[in-house]
C-alpha cells in the first residue's frame, strides 16, 4: 500500500467526495490556501471558489449557515480551524444541528461534517490546544469519530461526508504529518467499528487519535517487560463499538484507558463505565486511566510536556495493573 501522511489522506478524501457528489462543499477560515494545516490545499484549484469557500471570522455563521445549507440540499464540510473555536458556535452545534431533525419529528435531514483540528502540542497555548470531544459525545444528535491513522482518517472522513446525519471528526494536530499506509483503492471506514491496532493478551489499552500512537509505543516498552498489551482504537465514539471492547477485555481482564483531555467528566471516564457495565465480572483489577491533570494547557515547553499524556504513563499504569 502507498504511504501517505494523515493530512494528505484527509485531503484525498475531500477530493474524492467532492468529485463524487456536487452537493459537497467546504467552508472555513483560510481554507482556500489550506491554512494552517494544509488539509484543504489545492481544492480551490480543482473545485473552484464556489465549493471551497473562505469565510469571514464568524464561527456562528460558518456553522449555522452550514445547517441551513444542509437542510436545503447541500452537503457542507466545515473546517473549524481549531476545535477550540467551536465554543464560538456552540448553540449552532448543540442546539441547532444536533436537535433540529429530532425536534421537527424527522422532517429534515442534516448531512454535514464538522472537521475539528484539535489537540495539544508545539506550545500553541491555552486557546489552541484543547480536547473538547466530551461535550459533543454528551450531546445527543451528533456522531463523533477520532481517527488515529492516515487510512482511518481518509475512511472516516469519507463516511462522515456520506452520512446523512451530522458527524464531527476530531483531527489531532500532531498527526497531520504522520505517515501510514493508505489503500490505493477507495476505502470507507464505517462508524461504530473499532480496530485492534495491536493484539495482546495481558492488558487492553483503549485509546483514540494521538493516544493510539502512544499506546503502541507503550506496548513496545511493555513487551520488553514481558507484558503483552492489546491496543484497541474505537475510532468512533458515537456510535461506539461496545462488542469490540468487551471482546478484548474478555481476553485480557485488565484495562487502561488513555486520553489527552482532562480527567473529569471526560470520554475516558465514560468508556471506563461502559467497560465496567459490560465486563464487570471479567475485570481482575480496577480500570486505570491516563489523562491530563485538570488544568488548562500551559504555554512553556516543560509545563506543556508535563500535562501531555504519553506512553510512559500508559506503561506505568499497565505495570501497576499486572501486580
Amino acid at each position, binding site marked *: 500500500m502507498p504511504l501517505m501522511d494523515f493530512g494528505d489522506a484527509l485531503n484525498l478524501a475531500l477530493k474524492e467526495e467532492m468529485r463524487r457528489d456536487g452537493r459537497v*462543499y467546504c467552508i472555513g477560515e483560510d481554507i482556500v490556501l489550506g491554512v494552517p494545516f494544509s488539509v484543504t490545499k489545492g481544492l480551490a484549484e480543482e473545485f473552484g471558489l*464556489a*465549493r471551497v469557500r473562505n*469565510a*469571514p471570522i*464568524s464561527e*456562528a*455563521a*460558518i*456553522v*449555522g*449557515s*452550514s*445547517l*441551513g*445549507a*444542509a*437542510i*436545503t*440540499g*447541500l452537503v*457542507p464540510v466545515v473546517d473549524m480551524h481549531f476545535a477550540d473555536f467551536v465554543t464560538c458556535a456552540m*448553540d*449552532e452545534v448543540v*442546539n*441547532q444541528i444536533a436537535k*433540529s*431533525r*429530532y*425536534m*421537527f*419529528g*424527522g*422532517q*429534515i*435531514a442534516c*448531512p454535514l461534517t464538522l472537521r475539528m483540528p484539535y489537540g495539544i502540542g508545539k506550545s500553541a497555548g491555552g486557546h489552541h490546544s484543547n480536547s473538547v470531544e466530551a461535550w459533543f459525545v454528551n450531546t*445527543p*444528535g451528533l*456522531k463523533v469519530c477520532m481517527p488515529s491513522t492516515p487510512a482511518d482518517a481518509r475512511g472516516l472522513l469519507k463516511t462522515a461526508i456520506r*452520512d*446523512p*446525519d451530522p458527524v464531527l471528526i476530531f483531527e489531532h494536530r500532531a498527526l497531520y504529518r504522520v505517515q501510514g499506509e493508505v489503500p490505493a483503492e477507495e476505502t470507507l471506514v464505517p462508524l*461504530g467499528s473499532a480496530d485492534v491496532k495491536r493484539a495482546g493478551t495481558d492488558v487492553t489499552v483503549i485509546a483514540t487519535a494521538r493516544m493510539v500512537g502512544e499506546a503502541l509505543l507503550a506496548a513496545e516498552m511493555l513487551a520488553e517487560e514481558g507484558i503483552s498489551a492489546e491496543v484497541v482504537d474505537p475510532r468512533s465514539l458515537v*456510535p461506539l463499538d*461496545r462488542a469490540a471492547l468487551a471482546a478484548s477485555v474478555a481476553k485480557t481482564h485488565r484495562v487502561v484507558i488513555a486520553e489527552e483531555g482532562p480527567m473529569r467528566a471526560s470520554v475516558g471516564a465514560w468508556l471506563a463505565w461502559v467497560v465496567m457495565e459490560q465486563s464487570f465480572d471479567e475485570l481482575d483489577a480496577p480500570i486505570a486511566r491516563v489523562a491530563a491533570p485538570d488544568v488548562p494547557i500551559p504555554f512553556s515547553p516543560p509545563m506543556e510536556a508535563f500535562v501531555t499524556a504519553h506512553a510512559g504513563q500508559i506503561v506505568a499504569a499497565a505495570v501497576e495493573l499486572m501486580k
Partner: protein
Amino acid sequence: MVEEGAPTPAPDARARELYHAGRIPGFIHLSVGQEGVAVGVCAALRRDDYLLSTHRGHGHLIAKGGSLRRLMAEIFGKVTGCCKGKGGSMHIADASVGYLGANGVLASGCVLGPGVGLSIQIRGTDQVVVVLFGDGAANRGPFHEGVNLSALWRAPVVFVCENNSWASTTAHELSTAGGSIAARAAGYGIPGVAVDGNDALAVHAAVAEAVRRARGGDGPSLIEAKTVRWLGHHEGDPQAYRPKSEVEEGRRQDPIARLRAHLEGAALLDAAQPARVAQAIEAEVEDAIAFAESSPLPEPEAALDDLFVHWPWKGR
C-alpha cells in the same frame, strides 16, 4: 392576501383559550396584534420560498400556508402534529411549505439564513429565504454574523425584524442602542427600511421589493416592521411592566381591520365577503381543533425515534 392573511388571528385567539383550559402543554407565545407582519411577509413569498421563524411563529406558519390541523395538533402535543409532538409551540416546522422551523434560541435563524441562501445559489433556483426575528433578538451576535455573511455572498435572504417594542419585560429602548434596527443595515452596505408593521400592505410592499432584489441576485435586505404585541410575552405573563394604554393604542391600529378596510375601500371585497371569510376561518379553526383534540398522544417510546436518518445501532 386575504386568504393567507385572515386566518392568523383566530387560531391564536382560540389557542389562548385552549391553553388556559389546560389543553396545551408547555409555554405558548402568541402573535395577536402582529398579524400584519406575517401576512405582509408571506403574501410576498411563493410556496417554494423558505421561512426561518421565531419562538412566536404560529402566525408565520399559517401565513406561509402550513397545515392548520398539523399546527394545532403539534401544540397539543399530538402524534398527528407537524413534528409528531416532539417540537411543540416553540419548535413547529412544516418543511412542505418551506417553513424551516420556529426556534427556541433567539436569533439563531439569522445564521441559518445565509446557508439557505447559499443552497439556493448553488442549486441555481430563484427561491428566497426570509429570516424573522424579534427586536430583542437583534442584539445577539448571530444577527451581526448572519447579515454580514449574507451580504458578502449577495445571498437571497430577507431579514425581517418583527419589532413589537418589547423583549419579554425589557423595553426596546433599553436593549437596542441607537434605537433603530433598520439603521444597522447601512453598516453592511445593504438596504434597511422601517415600516408600519400594522399595515400589511406596507409590509408587503417592502418585502416584495426586497424579494425582487434577492431573486434578481442583488443580495439581502433588512426590514424592521414595527408592530404591537396585544397579549403577554407568553400566556400567563401578567404584564405589570407595561401600561394598558399601549395595547389600547395598538388595538386602534388593528392590522386585520386596516387590511379589511383597505380591501373594501378598493372594492376588492363586497359587503358580504368579510362575513363569509370569517365563517370559513372559524370553520377551519374549529376543524383543526377537533382534529387536534381527537388525535392520539404519541407513544412514550416514540421519544426514541427520529434522531438520526442512519441509525443501525438504534435501541442498542
